[in-house]
């Protein structure tokens, strides 16, 4: 069993570089190649940027905790905040064919992770669970469920 890596940063954009560096190394230590590790880093960065923008409404004095769990079958990233609850109906996934600023973050998160879910058990704030299966077949099965 592997213990997780956990990192807590203040909710200020200047600390996102620390999370990115940790995400890249955590993914590499878990055995991902450079492109996959870069995708994971990018996705975690976008998710943390969204916490600052939407959960904390740009209040940069709060906290974001990011946990990296490496198991045999999956690489899981958990992002927690104590900000306002994400309303699922607000999370719009727009078509990439429209050319306009904004609305790309979710696409990058979904590119790197097979499963992107908010943990309903979390009472206050949000707990976003990002899972990437190491085995492609398992990812497909999970999506069919």
């Amino acid at each position, binding site marked *: 069993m592997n213990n997780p890596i956990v990192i807590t940063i203040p909710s200020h954009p200047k600390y996102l*570089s620390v999370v990115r560096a940790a995400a890249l190394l955590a993914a590499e230590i878990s055995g991902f190649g450079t492109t996959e590790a870069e995708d994971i880093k990018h996705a975690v*960065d976008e998710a943390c940027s969204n916490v600052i923008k939407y959960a904390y409404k740009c209040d940069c004095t709060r906290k974001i905790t990011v946990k990296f769990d490496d198991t045999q079958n999956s690489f899981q990233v958990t992002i927690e905040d104590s900000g306002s609850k994400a309303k699922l109906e607000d999370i719009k996934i727009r078509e990439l064919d429209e050319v*306009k*600023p904004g609305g790309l973050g979710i696409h990058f998160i979904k590119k790197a992770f097979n499963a992107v879910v908010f943990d309903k058990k979390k009472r206050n704030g949000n707990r976003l669970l990002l899972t990437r299966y190491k085995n492609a077949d398992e990812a497909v099965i999970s999506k069919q469920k």
Partner: protein
Amino acid sequence: MKIETAAHSDYTVISIAGEIDMYSSPELRDTLLALVKKKAATVIVNLKDVKYIDSSGIATFVEALKKMLAYKGKFKMAQVPDRVMEIFNFSKLDKVFNIYGSIEDAANS
């Protein structure tokens, strides 16, 4: 992120180095919108030393492109690193941005 601006007679080159993220993109936006305000005819963004770009960086470029098109200005990109190009492809922006291999090619086109 570091930004260097070089004004030439026909065009302005904006060279960006480092990481473009939620922290640094506001500075990039200020730089580009200042050129838009002056109705700069041609802006060439040199991405050679960009190590990372997130969606806020892409949004900044899309905004600048749209604002320049509105007054028939030309917004061009040069020396896009592979990883950044991958992000543009994924975002379906590779066809929207005008991308050149070198600053010279961008200037002469």
